[in-house]
């Protein structure tokens, strides 16, 4: 793959609609992301050190009852949010539910901003569709983002 990319000069490459869609989707997912790096000290079992409510508080739930482990809650309730949304859509097509409550698209004309400097822009980069406002920003865009990181 890397070799092939070398042979084709970047100016000859144009991202197709699917690649642009993937890029856009990735950008939207990044807005949702909680962490952009790996968990430090992930090897240590830290939860052991966390005091549990029952131990720290004698007035807690009646002692005869055994508390459920966190594994229990993981298994029973931990579900990916997208799975929950899909399941609900199958059960309740009509709504109102999470899916029907999403705000519809805007009726206002879309605005475009330079991906480099953030000011309003009126041009689209031909290879990738990214927006730019001036030759200076186009140059920066080509040197940094344009077709980089595109699998």
């Amino acid at each position, binding site marked *: 793959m890397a070799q092939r990319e070398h042979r084709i000069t970047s100016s000859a490459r144009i991202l197709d609609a699917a690649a642009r869609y993937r890029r856009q989707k990735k*950008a939207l997912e*990044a*807005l*949702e992301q*909680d*962490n*952009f*790096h*790996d*968990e*430090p*000290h992930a090897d240590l079992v*830290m*939860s052991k*050190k*966390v*005091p549990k*409510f029952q131990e*720290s*508080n004698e*007035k*807690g*739930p*009646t002692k005869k009852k055994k*508390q*459920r482990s*966190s*594994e229990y*809650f*993981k298994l*029973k*309730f*931990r*579900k*990916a*949010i997208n799975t*929950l949304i899909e*399941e*609900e859509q199958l059960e309740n097509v009509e*709504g*109102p*539910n*999470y899916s*029907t*409550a*999403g*705000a*519809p*698209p*805007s*009726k*206002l004309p*879309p*605005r475009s901003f330079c991906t*480099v*400097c*953030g*000011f*309003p822009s009126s041009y689209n980069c031909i290879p990738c569709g990214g927006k730019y406002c001036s030759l200076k920003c186009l140059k920066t865009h080509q040197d*940094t983002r344009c077709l980089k990181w595109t699998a």
Partner: protein
Amino acid sequence: MPKLILDNGGYSIKAGFSTAEKPRLIPNCISKARSERRRPFIGDQIDDCRDTSGLFFILPFQKGYMVNADTQKTIWDYCFGKDVLDVTPTETDIVITEPHFNFKTLQEAVCELLFEEYEFRSLCRTSSSTSADYYYSITEGIQKKTSCTLVVDCGYSFTHIVPYVNGVKVTESVRRIDVGGKALTNHLKEIISYRQLHVLDETYLINQVKEDVCYVSTDFSQDVEVSKKKLSENNTIVREYVLPDYSSIRRGYIRKLEETGKRAKDNEQILRLNNERFTVPELLFHPSDVGIPQMGISEAIVTVIESFPEPIKHHFYDNIVLIGGTSCFPGFKERILHDVRRDASIYADTNVFLPTNPTFYAWEGAKKFSQDAEFSKYTVSRNTYNEKGLNAFAKICDI
């Protein structure tokens, strides 16, 4: 016996007894620091951490919903424990907020945790906006003799526009915009990382930068023009932010205006913020600026109100209530007022109410509700729950 009020948000928990003046604000996450191998920081324990660079977060919420019940339990164990609220669940009635359209499995998880694990005596399930509607109706709304409120809850995970008629949520008209404080912080991180300095791992820091420097523009095209100017040409928008080094500077701050543009002192690392200050919160009003195919807050407010018949519309325009941490941006209220007045189809008195503390308003409302003469009608006891399960809430809970 005081009630325990728990406004359980995706970003922060507002928790306290109904006897308290205000709640304790506890980040709803477990943080791990590079500098501390030995301990995870639960909730506000992170205040003890000296070096907060590169924090890693474990959150019970995803997209605004409590999908990780086990993580939530760890954080609640801390909140209810003797170091924080010292709760005796078997003798305590609890009020909790849940997100709109909460998924059934997750509703079960909340009930199971509170009733079966902690064994609370009784439970009242509500939402932040329902609590805010209640509070507003017994305070600001009372002179207006109004029956309609439009609550706009702009939080961390998303924004909800929620209409109430006579205290009842009009569920089919509720609209959600998938932009909240988290998307703004991540967007700011992304553009700073591209334009100046790699900060993708610094959510905690950039969140502070956002809170310290960002604002909602009330005249976008003018702010664009001003921010295009050089500093010497009277660019009144640009700010410089001194980053913490976690030794002599523990928390970042905005450089004094008269120092802006001057050379940094040896120990100072500086971020320069110009159009970022207002283009980032602008996503709340134009999600399509980053490709989210949804209308923004002002347009959604007008669209929701306009879906009601004529006499009711007037009441909604007159009683727009803003809550949630993300509504704390300077200019937020003014912008909404300006846009809604411009776009309303009818000539209406438009009033936007921003509480003194938008983050605490729902907690305060839930507290007032727990003191209402009718409150006990909206609670389910542990015995009833054991008999009927989630169905016990069917008629008294609007989640």
